[in-house]
């Protein structure tokens, strides 16, 4: 299969402007006659649905949540990047573009990333106009902060709840279109299949989660904004409901899954506390500005700490290994996420972990508390402050900066992080891979689009902090409203799509059979137990570091687990009722296939880049080693009937940046 990215001609900076100005348009009277289905109502979905509604299309929006406002975009903490250069610190669209390409370890498409940087500025304007309460300076202008690995302040934020505020903004815009009748909202509807008619995506099969009944929804095209697949690992920072099913159903109908092995592991999450653990909680990246990461130097000390016989405070300075500062003196504790995560793994692999399970490292604020305490004492004119005074003053400053995060940590762990260091460990956070899309965000199936985390296009092998919100909103507000016209302008003569065509009826029947099979299996193991097992396999063999042997083993294990699932899963209740266990079962069934594709992709990519670290491809000093000669391409996987995924490649051409090795030493 030839993958055509449909990147427009012209210089990088002018591509989008020129393309936008010469794209096919759909006249207002025709828009009224065209139906668009949008699945998912997170940042990308809600912004797309409302904007398409404003333009005049008839939009049908779907979410499995009880309200569009609950999508997991809501949990993003840190902020959203935009190349506004309000701080006059030398930021520009090109610089944001460059940082994103480099941060992505040179595995993303130049044209898409540049467009993202261009749209970033408009997003802020739009959000402000919608009433998003961004942080402000005393003069009333927008405040910025800096974020992981970049040298400018371009991150806009609303305390630690930027995602929530942006989503509420998009949700309110969507609500307005619902009230105006331009968007028909379907809450508690889960997409279970996409329907292809004459080679084009023309609708979806959904299950009404309240009644359990299947429904056929037809439209001229289908937009998927259904998020990432991090929950394949069972334990991740994703919401419990986040799943791959919509995207995976598209793959089963011929769409391609691109770069599935690129998984972002976030270094600062609260460690697993027991077997019952259901999800992991992120502690914002901003903590690494002041926290120092360390483990004990001696194995004996580590063991004593793990068994609760020693505490962190009892260890002298010389018995501590501040390994990030030691290994990466230039960036220290602020190395990018993938680097920090791998370093934590190295330390715990050596047996130096500091929690019961051995999987945790310290994030220590004692030095910051002392530093801030001393400087505050100085400003307050206290001469010869006592150490207790210094501590008190320092804790005050730290509390002002990170108070709510410290509070959250204490709520979850029951430990006071002012008194003893936080314990953290890396956890799955974001998936850079996703449905393969061209410049129009259209998959290889005509009329099927993918936005936000559900597509693969902008973050390459590693995503920078505060870029996910930017991408979701850029796709929804400023890209798809234009590029969808490229497809729909050819559909103005197509009458309303019937949902009674044989394709719809077959798809519904197949879906029904899948659901019946899950219920009828009537085995002995719960859906949850399969999901946990899958997660363990994924984490073990396709987690922070991978090797060929492990991946081969993992693939086999997933295949076996899939067979076991088919034979022995137990789903209580019936199809036609509110049945959360059945919902979980359909999602886990899809994860069981997706997991294998991820492993195959990881096995196929014989290099280390970004979120994909292969133990065989390491430089002499233990750093990730890319292979630009052979692997500067997008791996887009096709799921074949025989269950053997096949890879298709889209070469990545870098005409504007030079490929370099990332170094943080």
């Amino acid at each position, binding site marked *: 299969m030839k993958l055509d990215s449909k990147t427009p001609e012209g210089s990088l900076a002018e591509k989008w402007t020129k393309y936008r100005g010469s794209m096919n348009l759909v006249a207002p009277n025709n828009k009224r006659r065209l139906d668009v289905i949008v699945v998912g109502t997170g940042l990308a979905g809600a912004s797309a649905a409302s904007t398409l509604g404003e333009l005049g299309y008839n939009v049908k929006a779907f979410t499995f949540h009880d309200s*569009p406002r609950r999508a997991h975009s809501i949990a993003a903490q840190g902020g959203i990047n935009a190349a506004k250069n309000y701080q006059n610190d030398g930021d520009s669209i090109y610089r944001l573009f460059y940082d994103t390409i480099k941060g992505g370890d040179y595995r993303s498409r130049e044209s898409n990333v540049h467009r993202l940087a261009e749209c970033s500025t408009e997003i802020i304007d739009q959000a402000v*106009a919608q009433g998003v309460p961004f942080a402000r300076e005393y003069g009333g202008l927008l405040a910025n902060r800096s974020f992981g690995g970049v040298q400018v302040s371009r991150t806009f934020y609303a305390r630690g709840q930027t995602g929530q505020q942006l989503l509420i903004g998009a949700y309110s815009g969507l609500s307005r279109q619902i009230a105006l009748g331009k968007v028909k909202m379907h809450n508690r509807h889960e997409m279970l299949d996409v329907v292809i008619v004459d080679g084009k995506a023309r609708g979806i099969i959904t299950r009404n989660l309240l009644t359990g009944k299947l429904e056929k929804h037809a439209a001229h095209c289908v937009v998927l904004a259904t998020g990432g697949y991090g929950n394949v690992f069972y334990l991740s920072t994703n919401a419990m409901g986040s799943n791959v099913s919509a995207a995976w159903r598209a793959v089963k109908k011929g769409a391609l899954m691109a770069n599935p092995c690129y998984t972002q592991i976030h270094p600062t999450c609260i460690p697993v506390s027991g077997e019952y*653990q*259901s999800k992991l909680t992120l502690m914002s990246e901003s903590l690494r500005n002041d926290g120092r990461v360390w483990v004990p130097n001696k194995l004996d000390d580590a063991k004593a700490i793990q068994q609760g016989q020693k505490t962190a405070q009892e260890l002298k300075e010389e018995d501590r290994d501040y390994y990030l500062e030691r290994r990466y003196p230039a960036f220290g504790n602020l190395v990018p996420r993938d680097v920090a995560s791998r370093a934590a793994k190295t330390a715990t692999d050596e047996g130096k972990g500091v929690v019961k399970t051995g999987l945790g490292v310290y994030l220590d604020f004692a030095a910051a508390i002392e530093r801030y305490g001393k400087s505050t004492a100085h400003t307050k004119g206290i001469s010869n402050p006592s150490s207790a005074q210094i501590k008190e003053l320092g804790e005050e400053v730290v509390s002002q900066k990170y108070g709510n995060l410290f509070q959250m940590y204490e709520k979850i762990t029951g430990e006071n992080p002012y008194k003893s260091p936080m314990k953290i460990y890396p956890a799955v956070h974001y998936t850079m891979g996703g449905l393969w899309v061209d410049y129009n965000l259209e998959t290889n199936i005509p009329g099927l689009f993918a936005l936000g985390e559900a597509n693969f296009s902008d973050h390459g092998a590693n995503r920078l902090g505060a870029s996910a919100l930017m991408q979701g909103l850029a796709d929804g507000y400023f890209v798809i409203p234009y590029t969808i016209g490229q497809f729909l302008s050819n559909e103005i003569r197509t009458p309303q799509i019937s949902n009674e065509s044989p394709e719809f009826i077959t798809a519904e029947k197949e879906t029904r059979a899948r659901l019946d099979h899950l219920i009828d299996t009537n085995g002995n193991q719960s859906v949850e137990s399969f999901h946990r097992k899958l997660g363990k396999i994924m984490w073990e063999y396709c987690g922070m570091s991978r090797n060929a042997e492990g991946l081969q083993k993992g693939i086999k294990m997933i295949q076996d687990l899939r067979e076991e699932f088919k034979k022995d899963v137990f789903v209580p209740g019936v199809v036609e009722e509110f049945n959360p266990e059945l919902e979980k079962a359909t999602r886990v069934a899809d994860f069981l296939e997706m997991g294998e594709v991820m492993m195959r992709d990881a096995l196929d990519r014989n290099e280390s880049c970004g979120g994909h670290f292969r133990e065989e491809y390491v430089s002499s000093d233990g750093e990730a080693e890319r292979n630009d000669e052979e692997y500067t391409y997008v791996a887009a996987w096709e799921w074949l009937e025989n269950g053997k995924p096949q890879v298709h490649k889209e070469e990545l051409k870098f005409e504007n940046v030079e490929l370099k090795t990332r170094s943080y030493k």
Partner: protein
Amino acid sequence: MQLTLKVWRQKNNKAEGKFEFHKIQAEEHMSFLEMLDVLNEKIVSEKKEPVAFEHDCREGICGSCSMVINGRPHGPQAGTTTCQLHMRAYKSGDTITIEPFRATSFPVIKDLVVDRSSFDNIIQAGGYISVNTGQAVDGNAIPVNRDDASDAFDSAACIGCGACVAACPNGSAMLFTSAKINHLEKLPQGKIEHNTRVKNMIKQMDKEGFGKCSNVGACGVECPKEIPMDNIAAMNRSYLTSVFTKE
């Protein structure tokens, strides 16, 4: 720790509900929802139907959890959603009563799951700023007072969980509605439509069948985002002003 759970079971909206008792072994580091996961695993292993409860992000921001624990929405801790509540708040031997949010406008769907779409309807009645994509001026074109932005955020922190309604002995949605109105009112962009917004949202709130506020204040106490009741007074003022002074 050994706990006795007294859980509300209700097949659907039409069926009668009743309490079901379960003995369960929990650990102090579990979150409340993880404790329910353990319960459900046990129920499923007996090939019975697990307790349906709503949850998603499990980090206190999506607003999905909707249960009342020993008479209090989201349990005993201030500023904490059910998913952030951990079992160390309980001791071995405790009996914990778990019920769904109760209000006529939040009908029970199953067990602990309730229908909160009335909140969406209130937002659709005017909880937005009428601006189309692409119309916006530059983000810094209109300065916003720093304190106003901060106040707006305090109201905007609402996660739409409905604990306010669940806590209110009158089943009133005044805190939810007022938080949204005040969030937008505090910002210059939101002031333009303020008068019509207040009237329309309150009209819709009444239409949804929510009760009338009698200033009990339980909403503010139980709000997991600690949104204060001042919002209600501010909305009353806005409403009276808009009714008596504007067309």
